[in-house]
């Protein structure tokens, strides 16, 4: 018998394999947690593949997937905030202990300290290389809001990286 007693379908594997790496890296930057990133990516794929199985324009898939990942990460952090408020005690995730690995480590800590919306704006703008207008569309907020979020976030990142 062949190596697989069951076989996979063709197209959704292609979409998955073409985008899973990018999706995971984006989710990791948005959350700072690889397990959470995997969960978010899985949720986003299931949702988008399930809903857009007949997508005519395969190029649009990443647009939908990216949006789903960003929305899910925002929902996650919103939920965390509610839980903290509900329990009436602050439990911020402390920065990971360990040796200072330099700028990358400082950026990791600085990203974790940003508000989720700010972090998403920075990641979409400077990692995904989206324009400000596209970042606003992906986040579902006005252009002016993106400009101010990115500006404030970049100020904090510059401080953390000692670039002032």
């Amino acid at each position, binding site marked *: 018998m062949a190596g697989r007693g069951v*076989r996979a379908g063709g197209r959704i594997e292609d979409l998955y394999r073409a985008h899973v790496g990018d999706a995971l890296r984006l989710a990791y930057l948005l959350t700072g947690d690889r397990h959470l990133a995997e969960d978010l990516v899985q949720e986003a794929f299931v949702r988008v593949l399930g809903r857009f199985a007949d997508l005519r324009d395969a190029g649009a898939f990443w647009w939908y997937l990216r949006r789903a990942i960003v*929305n899910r990460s925002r929902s996650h952090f919103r939920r965390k905030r509610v839980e903290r408020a509900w329990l009436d005690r602050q439990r911020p995730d402390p920065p990971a202990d360990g040796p200072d690995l330099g*700028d990358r480590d400082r950026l990791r800590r600085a990203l974790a300290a940003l508000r989720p919306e700010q972090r998403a704006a920075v990641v979409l703008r400077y990692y995904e290389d989206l324009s400000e207008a596209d970042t606003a569309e992906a986040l579902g907020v006005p252009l002016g809001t993106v400009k101010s979020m990115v500006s404030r976030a970049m100020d904090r990142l510059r401080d953390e990286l000692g670039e002032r």
Partner: protein
Amino acid sequence: MRGVEIKIRELLRELAGEVGLDPGLEGRTLRRARRRRVRNGALGAAGALGMLVAAAVATRALLAPLPGGPSPRQAPSSPSVAPGAAFPGIYPQTSWEELERDQRAVDEGHHPLWTAPEAVAAEFAVAVLGWDPEDVVTERNPRQDLGAGVYISNPSLRPELPEPGTQVQLEQLGRTGPGGIWTVTSVSGVGIVLEGIDAFQEVRPGQELEVRGGLTLGTEATAVEVSLFDGPLTGEPAAATTVPDQAGFGPRLTVPPSADGTLTLLVRAVEPDGRAWSATALPLLVAGAREPAVPRLEPQAGLPEAVAAKREAIFLAAAAGDLEGLAALADPATFTFSYGADRDPVRYWRAIEAAGGEGPAEVIPELLHAPYGTLRSGGRTLYVWPFAAAMDDLSALTPAQRQALRALGYTERDIRSFVAAGGFLGWRLGITEDGRWIFYVAGD
């Protein structure tokens, strides 16, 4: 300035490179995605919405009307709306699959507050109304004995609003009792009145839905956002409009199609800063025109009528996940589904699915789209899918045939193994020229 931006770009790329791909993720993700596609498509193809509407509505009991708002309906706290019916929840879960997933997460120790209706209502206030978590005040409605009613209010917004506030209606749609998670099923906004529209009202894609109503309190500087969501309320609305409230509102929205047969109507009374001081949210049922996510079965040239009819019947049963119906289509005297000692095809297929493999619901719809081949046996013709199952020598595959197998998910390594074994050993399906389904089997 530019130098910092370049540096941050580079650091972000380095940081992103830290995360590796878990090889098990692909299987888990694609299995769930296929199940969702097949389920959506089967529901659409079966046109079962009427029954689903009846099932969902019939299980609901009318609650006592709330002052100033519509009359939310709710189900008994026992899980009488079975999975397979339209999902009646609107937040945070919007599908049975999400409900199952989130219940599992809670069982594993995550999100313990999802078992508290007050906490879920508070989360709704933050996520959908835009309130700060620290501002949310919740109060359980003590008079309610079905499900849970939780009033939410925000002292930093419109202090003139009457107590106790907006009522969030929640139900345990899966497990009931301690440990079961709560889902918002409707929201009745303080100071918002809707006319002529009710929870579980049936709408049709393309219909112009008039959302008529008015604000009874605090209309100054308030805009009314009216949206229809096909999915989470925290996502992008499928249709939306914003109107000022001047002695009432009545915008019209074009009803979009729905992937799972439900939409959520959300009406928010919005402050200039974007926060909503009140909101009403209702599930709507979308009749008729759901888009099948599974491709329809296209006719294939050259098939005798009996074969084409049986092929279509097998496809529909498989796509609907109806394993008993599928087994009933097989020729009882000759059907081969396993080379083992199994006698019951349904039990065998269920065992495959339980082991995480792909059952007929996932394999057959795509298999029947592949080109077919023919074999002659006893003076009769046998039609087989895929074509490769009718070939003796797979080393002679043309590039187009090779591509057709790859489209079914077979790799070059799989194909080499078939060549070495002397024949195609993947899932294959055969129908005799007189329309008898005689095998659906893999291996040798």
